[in-house]
């Protein structure tokens, strides 16, 4: 079979239905099972393909803190907004980041109010823009998990134009499981689905502590319907066996030891320090920061970016932080679909396609036609 045909099969309906039946058969022997994923794309695909409807009632898939723009600390968005008003400075970031509400303004609001903000598709765009406009200064607002941190690190290591600076808000996922397990326990969660592409960078062993410390299984999951369902089924088999080993169910992409080239670059560019996850808490070892030797590129050290006001993570009534912790669902929030909608987001989880509230809004809109 041609490889392109093989790849198409990962979306095949008969396999999806077959796996759904296997999951139901296995689930009957297990009682109630609650699994959490920590990936905005997983939630998007689960909604898009109606995968929850293919699972028996006894299995609950809980969305966790897996949306990069949602967990981006408001303090740093406020700093990016402040930078955008400095003469001669333009802030560059991903499109969904621009619309995330912050304390007073989103980056998009700042752009409308006279700040200088431009959307980019990735760090490579930032380099091109900086090269083409040597008389101006640019700040790339680098957000995202291991996957995007790798790109930023590599770019910095390779050398960037003198007029390009970085405001780093990247976060490292593994330690957030310690935070999740302060809120949950082995009764409220029986296993974690791991975000395939973040693990493609780190390798699987950085998650071994979840077995050692919490005795819970983790399964690395890809992003097609067949990937997600086969990961869930393998999780159920592990639970049935009483095994908490980390399983790689995305072996066509994820190597056991990750991407060593990318990891080496990240280690040479970044340190990891305690980092804020918006509205939730500070988590040890999760914030990437530039090493001192790259201080000349660090916007937070090269510019005065402190806003003239105090940052506030959660607007009144917003439940995003509790939704990201898996304590509440979007439908538990009084603002969902009322005051908070994708065209006028009130909380951060309603902005990006990776936000849980955004996915649920779109999914419900498809079904209910509102």
């Amino acid at each position, binding site marked *: 079979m041609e490889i392109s045909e093989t790849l198409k099969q*990962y979306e095949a309906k008969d396999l999806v239905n077959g796996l759904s039946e*296997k999951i139901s058969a296995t689930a009957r022997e297990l009682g109630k099972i609650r699994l959490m994923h920590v990936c905005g794309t997983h939630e998007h695909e689960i909604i898009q393909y109606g995968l929850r409807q293919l699972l028996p009632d006894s299995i609950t898939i809980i969305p966790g803190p897996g949306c990069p723009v949602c967990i981006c600390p408001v303090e740093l968005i406020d700093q990016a907004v402040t930078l955008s008003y400095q003469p001669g400075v333009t802030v560059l970031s991903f499109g969904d980041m621009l619309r995330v509400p912050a304390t007073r303004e989103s980056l998009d609001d700042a752009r409308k109010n006279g700040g200088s903000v431009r959307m980019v598709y990735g760090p*490579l765009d930032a380099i091109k823009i900086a090269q083409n406009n040597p008389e101006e200064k640019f700040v790339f607002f680098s957000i995202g998990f291991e996957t995007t941190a790798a790109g930023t690190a590599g770019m910095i290591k390779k050398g960037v134009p003198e007029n390009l600076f970085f405001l780093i808000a990247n976060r490292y996922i593994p330690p957030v499981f310690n935070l999740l397990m302060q809120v949950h326990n082995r009764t409220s969660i029986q296993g974690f689905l791991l975000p395939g592409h973040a693990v493609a*960078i780190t390798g699987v062993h950085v998650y071994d502590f979840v077995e050692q410390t919490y005795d819970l299984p983790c399964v690395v999951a890809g992003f097609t319907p067949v990937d997600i369902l086969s990961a869930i*089924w*393998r999780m159920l088999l592990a639970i049935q066996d009483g095994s908490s080993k980390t399983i790689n169910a995305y072996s066509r992409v994820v190597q056991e030891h990750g991407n060593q080239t990318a990891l080496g670059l990240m280690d040479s560019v970044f340190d990891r320090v305690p980092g804020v996850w918006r509205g939730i808490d500070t988590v040890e070892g999760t914030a990437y920061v530039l090493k001192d030797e790259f201080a000349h590129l660090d916007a937070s050290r090269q510019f005065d970016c402190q806003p003239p006001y105090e940052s506030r993570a959660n607007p009144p009534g917003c439940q995003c932080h509790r939704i990201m912790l898996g304590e509440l669902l979007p439908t538990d929030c009084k603002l969902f679909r009322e005051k908070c909608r994708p065209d006028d987001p009130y909380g951060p989880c309603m902005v990006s396609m990776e936000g849980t509230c955004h996915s649920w809004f779109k999914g419900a809109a498809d079904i209910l036609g509102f």
Partner: protein
Amino acid sequence: MCLAIPGKIEEIDQQAIMRTARVNFNGMVKEVCIEWVPEADVGKYVIVHAGFAISVLDEKEALESLDLINEVAQSPNAYRKW
């Protein structure tokens, strides 16, 4: 977003400051940095995130995993293989 579909490398630009390639995603061709996947080559498939290839698809694993899923998902008797 994490893009589920890998893209096929059509051409590698050796002259660029960073090793880049033209990558075809089901008909849509994008310029992608392949600097961090040294094993990338023309004809291979890569997983791309925000303009950077992060992993080269292991075609053997793709086929073997699919065979296994096919077997367990479609045969009532193959209850578990993993």
